[in-house]
Each structure stands twice: as structure tokens, then as C-alpha cells.
């Protein structure tokens, strides 16, 4: 409490100074604005702050203070908007490296960011807790580049279909999304990184089309998949395409759609709101995804490399996994979560932590196609997506 007050006092003082400074500088003609480091934003003042820039789903709110107690790290969390594309743009062309130390991005862009020099490899000897990460999470195809580790799986899950069993009975195939009987009653996500994968999985597994890896389509496969989506769009199959959590929940919650591809926490939220919703276990399999920690080059330049490794190690240490599971139903792929809950049964219910872990593990025991924000033909994906939009 005391330190909090001190921080906000410091913040208030420093921001007053920076405001005065700004007026002075403007008065001097604005040319001296280059001394920009004077103007640090209010939230990022305390020395040794570690800035974590990630998807909002990774935020654990007040629980970040535990990183200070456990590892002496003051974590400042900033939401990057949950859209990996613009975040990558801000990393390679924009200013993200001046501001943030660690990124949390949907996996796939690691290679590109590494080639660009926006991120640097992790020194795995400084992250002992990586030992306990589940092997299949370590095997996510794009964590490494040039034999070095660029991405650490912080959160993983597998997605399928959210549906209304009271209207549809049991659903066990993506075919429901393309069923003409449900015209105008289904939706997909307004993002090719997910929707193209779902359609490809359906075509591969249930319509026996020649498709290799649904997460990384060749030019021909992509054409096939997208023509399929375009045809259904033209037929009026989709009520709309959704983007973002609140829109997805609203579509199901307000009865706009009976089935849609989407994220499992939407099901939990729907149930909390008293709706009868289920998450399908499709015969075609799930779309797996990892939200991975990347080490920004700027952190190392600022001398925060060691702190960043300490942070990554702390994240995989168990407490964070328990807190995130409790707050949002997402899973850190490590056995240490259960170990932590068992050792701290007054804080977290070990049975619940274990059940969540087993639930996710079970999803990954069958067929899984990995989501990939940067398939080899990613420029073509974008071009096809425009064709879909304008069909």
C-alpha cells in the first residue's frame, strides 16, 4: 500500500515535471523534442520496471504483484489488442522496441521477427522451469529459428465450435458450419489465421480433399479452401464474421447464431450467463494455438535481459498458471501449475487446476492443426481474404 502511494506520488510529480518541460520545450521552438526520454508515461516510472506487452487474455491484474514478491520484478502490463498483425507491424516498423521488454503474441511470427532483428533468442540455461513444459508444447513448429529458441509457449489451447445443443443436438463436425439447413445461423471469425484453418481441416478430414497441413496451405490448397468459403459466403451461409471476444459472446448470447467457430472461454462465459452452450469435439480435430513469449531486442539493449529471463521463468513457475486458469480458464502448458496448487491448497483448488490441465491435454491427444500467424504463403492468404470480403 505504502509503495503504491509512493509510486503514484512519484508518478504525479514526474508527470507534472514532464508537462512543464513540454511547455518549455515547445516554447523553445520544439526542436529540442529529441530529449524525449524525459517524458516517460505515468505507469512506467519505477526503475527496473519490466514492460510486458501482450494479448489481454494474459493479464492477471493484481496478481502481477506476486512477481515482485517472488522475483523482485515490477511487471507493467500493456494490452496489445489481441491482433498479432498490427502488433508485428509495430514491432518491425514502429516503436514497440523502445517501449516494451517482452511480447506475448499468437505464435507463428517468430521467424519473421527474428529475421528482422526485432526479437532475440532466449538463453534457455536461465529458464530452468522450461524443463517442466509439456513436450508437445515444446514441439510447436515455429518456436525455434536457426536452432535457437525464440518463442516460449506461455499459454496454449485448442479451438473448435461453440454451439447450442438445445437447437442442434450433438455437434461433432465442422460440417455444421457449412450445413445449408443452417443458412444465416452460423458465423466464423473475421480472420484467416483461424477461419482458413477450420475450413481446411473440414475439407481434409470430412471431404477427403488433398490437403497437407491445414495450418500452412500451399497455393493450390489455399485456392481450394478459399473458393469453398467464398461459395458459402455468397450463398448467405454466414450471419456475419465476428472479431473479438465481446462480439463472439454477443452472437451466441443473443441467439444471432446457433453455431460458430471460436474460443472455448466463450462457452464458459455463455454458461455463466445462463445459456445452454457446448463446445464441440469435432471428428476433424481442433485448431491448436500457442501464445508465445518473445524477448524484445530493446530489453537487452536496455540491460533488462536478465530480468526478462527471470520473468519468463517466474511465468512458468506455477503461480501464474494457477492464477490465469482461475481468472480466464486458460492453461500454461506446465506441470508446475498442479504442483503449485498442491503446495498452496489454500490459494488454489488442486483438483480444479488438475482438471483444467487434463481437459486441455485431452484436446491435444487427438488431431490438432496448429494455428499459424505466418504461413509460408501469408501474402496470398491476405489476397484471398480480400477476394472473400469482396465476393
Amino acid at each position, binding site marked *: 500500500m505504502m509503495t503504491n502511494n509512493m509510486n503514484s506520488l512519484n508518478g504525479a510529480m514526474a508527470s507534472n515535471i*514532464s508537462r512543464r518541460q*513540454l511547455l518549455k520545450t515547445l516554447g523553445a521552438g520544439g526542436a529540442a*523534442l*529529441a530529449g*524525449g*526520454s524525459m*517524458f*516517460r*508515461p*505515468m*505507469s*512506467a516510472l519505477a526503475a527496473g520496471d519490466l*514492460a510486458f506487452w501482450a*494479448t*489481454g*487474455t494474459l*493479464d492477471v*491484474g493484481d496478481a502481477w504483484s506476486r512477481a515482485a514478491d517472488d522475483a523482485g520484478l515490477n511487471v*507493467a502490463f*500493456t*494490452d*496489445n*489488442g*489481441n*491482433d498479432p498483425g*498490427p502488433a508485428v*507491424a*509495430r514491432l518491425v*516498423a*514502429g*516503436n514497440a522496441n*523502445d*517501449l*516494451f521488454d517482452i511480447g506475448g503474441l499468437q505464435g507463428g511470427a517468430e521467424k519473421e521477427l527474428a529475421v528482422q532483428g526485432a526479437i532475440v533468442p532466449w538463453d534457455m540455461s536461465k529458464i530452468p522451469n522450461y524443463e517442466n513444459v509439456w513436450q508437445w508444447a515444446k514441439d510447436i513448429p515455429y518456436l525455434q529459428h536457426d536452432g535457437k529458441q525464440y518463442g516460449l509457449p506461455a499459454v496454449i489451447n485448442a479451438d473448435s465450435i461453440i454451439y447450442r445443443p438445445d437447437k442442434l443436438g450433438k455437434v461433432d463436425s465442422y460440417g455444421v458450419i457449412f450445413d445449408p439447413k443452417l443458412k444465416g445461423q452460423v458465423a466464423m471469425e473475421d480472420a484467416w489465421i483461424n477461419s482458413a484453418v477450420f475450413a481446411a481441416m473440414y475439407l481434409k478430414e470430412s471431404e477427403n480433399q488433398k490437403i497437407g497441413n491445414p495450418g500452412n496451405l500451399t497455393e493450390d490448397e489455399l485456392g481450394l479452401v478459399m473458393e469453398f468459403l467464398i461459395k458459402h459466403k455468397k450463398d448467405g451461409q454466414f450471419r456475419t464474421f465476428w*472479431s*473479438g*471476444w*465481446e*462480439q463472439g459472446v*454477443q452472437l451466441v*448470447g443473443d441467439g444471432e447464431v446457433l453455431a460458430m467457430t471460436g474460443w472455448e*472461454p466463450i462457452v464458459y*462465459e455463455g454458461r*455463466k*450467463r*445462463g*445459456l445452454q452452450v457446448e463446445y464441440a469435439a469435432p471428428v476433424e480435430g481442433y485448431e491448436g494455438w500457442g501464445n508465445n513469449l518473445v524477448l524484445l531486442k530493446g530489453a537487452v539493449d536496455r540491460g533488462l535481459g536478465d530480468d526478462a529471463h527471470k520473468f519468463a521463468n517466474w511465468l512458468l513457475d506455477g503461480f501464474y498458471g494457477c492464477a490465469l486458469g482461475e481468472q*480466464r480458464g486458460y492453461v500454461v502448458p506446465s506441470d508446475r501449475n498442479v504442483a503449485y496448487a498442491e503446495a498452496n491448497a489454500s490459494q488454489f483448488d488442486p483438483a480444479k487446476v488438475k482438471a483444467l490441465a487434463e481437459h486441455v491435454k485431452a484436446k491435444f491427444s487427438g488431431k490438432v492443426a496448429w494455428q499459424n500467424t505466418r504461413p509460408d504463403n501469408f501474402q496470398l492468404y491476405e489476397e484471398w481474404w480480400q477476394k472473400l470480403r469482396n465476393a
Partner: protein
Amino acid sequence: MVAGFESRPLKAAIWLMTAIGLAIIYLPPLYLVAVSFNPALQPALPPLSDISLTWYFALAKERTLISALQESLLVATITALVATGLALLSALAYMDLGKWRSRWFMFVLLPMFVPGIIQGLSLSVIFGRIGLKPFWGTVAASHLLWALPFAFTVILTSMAAVRRSYLLAASDLGASWWRQLVDVTLPLIKPGLVAAFIFSFLLSLNEFGRAFYLVGRQNTLPLAMFGKMNSGASPTIYALSGSIFLASILAVSFVLLAAQAKDRKLHR
């Protein structure tokens, strides 16, 4: 009542269109204010018996949203002040520029046609080059560029109320350029200045694309809202909007009452 508007059907038609305009802009915020008093998670109109302040109490704990709101208010205030000041200077210059007026108008207007995200990204590239770290000021700089053409046009529109004859008369009475400005022009264009300030403030408060590329570690409110809506929002976002809505009603009522009191004093 002004001559020409006496006909009843005409008046009815005008008021009807006004009512339609108000209905369109009030339906969404009023609906969400009602939703914000619903203790249920599912956004819907609450039954009267269920009305509760649950989400308003929860709001106090939403530090992310509150600090984003503070950041946005700071940026919007600075943007509005600077934009209104610069727009006033630009409009005064416009009056003096003679045959260059048209070109000057186009010049000031040009930045508003650049798509927001692209302006944000290219500015962030330039700021990066000169070593300026992103903070609230870089966001305000881009918002200034966005708001200035609006503020400028609004003030120009209101300049029509200033007749050359007024200024000539003042000049004949020996008023300097400065006195003409303060005693004649400014009082006449005051509504334009107020409108320019409000426009700039609102444009900044709701701006997303430019801010995305130029914020420091502290997100502005639209960015924070976007993040919340994308990754598991709770109804506190409606409570925040509801609070802002109610606060603006209070602020506006206060200003109106104050104006009325001043009126009464003047007329006594």
C-alpha cells in the same frame, strides 16, 4: 421566432427531424446506460426490480480502464487547446491572405485525408528517426494533425459573422489590430471557438488508429476498450461508458445553469 418560420406544419416538420436525429444518436448510449444497471452478465435491459450498481462498484477496481481514461482526457485536453489556438491563428491568417486563401485552406485541410493508421505508422517512423520516445505527447501530436482541419473549418464558418464594416468602424475609431481582434472579432466568433474546442476534444477522445502506433506504455481509452472487448470484457465497460455519459450530462447541466444565472444577472 424568426420571420418565415411561422407556419405550423413547417415547424412540426423541423422539430420532427430534430427528434429523429436525437433518437438516432441517443438510442445506443441510453440503451447501454440501462444495460450498465443490469447485474446480469448478459447485456440486456434490466427488469426494474433488478436495477443495481454492481458494475459501478466493480469499476473502482478497473485500474487499467481508469488510467486509460486519464490518459485520454489529458491527450484530448491538450489536443483541443492547441488545435483551437492554431485554428484561430490560421483562420485570422486566412482573412489576411487575399488570393492565397484558397491554397492556404487546402494546405491546412490536407492532413485530414490521410488514413489514420497510415498516418500513425508513418509518424511513428519519423519520431523513431529523431529519437523521440512515444508518450502521451506523440499521441497528442497526431491528434492535433487530425483535429486541426476540423477546428480550422469550424472557426472559418463562424468568421462569417464578422463583417468587414465592423472592423472598419473599429479601425476608424482608432482601434489597433489587437483591439479589433479582442473587442470585435473574438466575441463574435466565440461560438465557433467553443465548437472547435469540443470537436477537437471529441475527435481525440475517440481516435484509435493513430494512437495505436504512437502510444507509450499507457494505452488511451479507445485502445484499452478495444483490448477489453477483444479479450474477455466484463460489464464494467458499460458501467464506464454509463459513468462518462452521466458525468457529461452533469457537466453540461452545470454549464447551462451557470450560463442561465449569468443571463439573469445581466438582465436584472
